[in-house]
């Protein structure tokens, strides 16, 4: 594209409009978290007239935010680790082997992506209950149950994306490794994985974000002990008050680690998405 005068105007307009669209909610979130409760309950103002940090202090007391934070972190990190490991193995099989059932597998896995969550919310709950009753393995109301659930949510997309990524790595590289005496797993470990690092990182980010932001299953599968942030934040509206400034402060604190992580690694994410999509 040439940077004609027309293009520059177009760019200016698009970037301004979209920039404002993105910016305004973020600005409101940040400034409202710095206002006293009285100010967020009154008419909206662009500039906080009474700056205060108390929402950031009080939010830990109004709601056991620290516990939810720990829960969300443990659940999301574990789900990511397992999901990525499982996706790597599966994607390697799909990308490098021709075997009976390959198409059936990829079709089935991809089609699970379109299952609406409500369809299996209650059944999954009942299955977890049965597992508990038969094997004594507690899955309802524990972090383990959430980890298993969330790791599967990101699995279809991860396998698909990684398989696309692996496909883009020349097979000659694996074959060279095989000639060198590595097995297929050696080829995966020494050749394919290092070359696919951006894809792996992208998948990891995707898994983490899926788990960190999930609401539906968390609303049914969590109890006070394993509650995650996604449902915990609702508790700022209590019987007596709605602490909007604390909600905004908490939303901000909860978002910062994910946003920073994502933005730092976005280059890989973009590359991963392309490899998957262009396949």
């Amino acid at each position, binding site marked *: 594209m040439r940077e004609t005068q027309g293009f520059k105007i177009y760019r200016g307009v698009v970037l301004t409009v979209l920039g404002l669209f993105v910016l305004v909610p973020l600005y409101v979130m940040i400034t409202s978290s710095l206002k006293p409760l009285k100010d967020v309950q009154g008419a909206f103002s662009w500039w906080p007239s009474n700056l205060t940090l108390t929402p950031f202090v009080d939010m830990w007391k109004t709601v056991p935010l620290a516990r939810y934070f720990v829960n969300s972190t443990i659940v999301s990190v574990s789900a990511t680790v397992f999901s990525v490991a499982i996706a790597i193995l599966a994607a390697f099989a799909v990308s490098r082997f021709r075997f009976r059932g390959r198409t059936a597998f990829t079709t089935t896995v991809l089609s699970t992506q379109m299952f609406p969550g409500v369809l299996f919310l209650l059944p999954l709950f009942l299955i977890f209950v049965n597992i508990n009753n038969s094997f004594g393995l507690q899955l309802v109301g524990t972090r383990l149950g959430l980890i298993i659930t969330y790791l599967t949510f990101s699995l279809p997309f991860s396998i698909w994306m990684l398989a696309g990524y692996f496909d883009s790595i020349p097979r000659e590289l694996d074959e060279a490794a095989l000639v060198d005496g590595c097995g297929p797993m050696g080829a995966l470990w020494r050749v394919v994985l290092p070359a696919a690092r951006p894809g792996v990182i992208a998948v990891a980010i995707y898994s983490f974000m899926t788990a960190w932001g999930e*609401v539906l299953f968390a609303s049914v599968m969590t109890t006070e002990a394993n509650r995650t942030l996604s449902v915990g934040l609702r508790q700022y509206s209590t019987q007596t008050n709605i602490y909007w400034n604390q909600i905004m402060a908490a939303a901000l604190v909860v978002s910062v680690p994910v946003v920073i992580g994502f933005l730092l690694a976005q280059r890989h994410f973009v590359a991963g998405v392309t490899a998957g999509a*262009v396949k």
Partner: protein
Amino acid sequence: MSVATQEATPAAAKPAKKKTRRGPEHRPGLNRWLPYLLLAPAVLAELLIHIIPMVVGIWMSFIKLTKFFIANWSAAPSAGLNNYKVALDFNNAVGEGLLKSFGVTVAFSLITVALSWVLGMAAAVALQPPFRGRGIIRTFFLVPYALPAYAGILTWNFMLQRDTGAVNHVLNQLHLSDGRTFWLIGSNALVSLITVATWKLWTFAFLTLMAGLQSIPGDLYEAASVDGAGNIRQWRNITLPSLRPVNLVLVLVLFLWTFSDFNTPYVLFGTAQPPAGDLITFHIYNASFLTWNFGTGAAMSVLLLIFLMIVTGAYLLVTGRRSRRA
């Protein structure tokens, strides 16, 4: 996130070391089974979390799972096709509600997907040629996607309040309204829902399209410029066709996401969902949990799944045929 990759790889590496010592190429039996071994964990997880629950869900749609049987649900009597009849009887209140919700959801999905694609494309094209600050703007645009869904939606909820919200304040300052518009009740609820969903989704479209643009060779454009093609024609003749594979997948994914979007209505409206914002998954969730009629809820879910499968199948068929012809 780097923790994840470091942790993940040793697991994959273990069997590798063993086999390296033994020399795997001499064991064709293992190689035949290896792909299945590699798939096993994924298959197990999918079975446990997706496939079996889906089968159980289909089974639930054929039983009378109301509050009278929920404590002992294995004893619930068969309902035959009754749950489906109730859900599909559009002259009846329940069926009518489902149909309305379906209509709202179709409108919501089509508009949201279209808007997200248009905005994503506009931004991706604007950021195609390098200029100072491009990286920063690109990163900034990705923030809504990176933000946990509920955090962004809660902020919008706050902004869309009638008396204390930023949206009415802005409209009033710009003299576009009297600043007393309701955004979370009445028919405006759909507008709010689309705005919030688009705010979050367009950046994903942007991300994907931007990645797609990078893979278009620059000399294509140069050649077109030499031929005297303007930017608009270049976009139509080069950009759009090159992005076709990306677009095919992107539109489908966006549609599937928006059509079964639960987070946005759930967090935006809470318990007070207005009819104009009654998206179908939210409708089913309420039909199940508020009225304790899990059998009917399951039947509605199965119907939704069938609909999504038909749409996806038809989409893939049509687009597949067209690209073969092209």
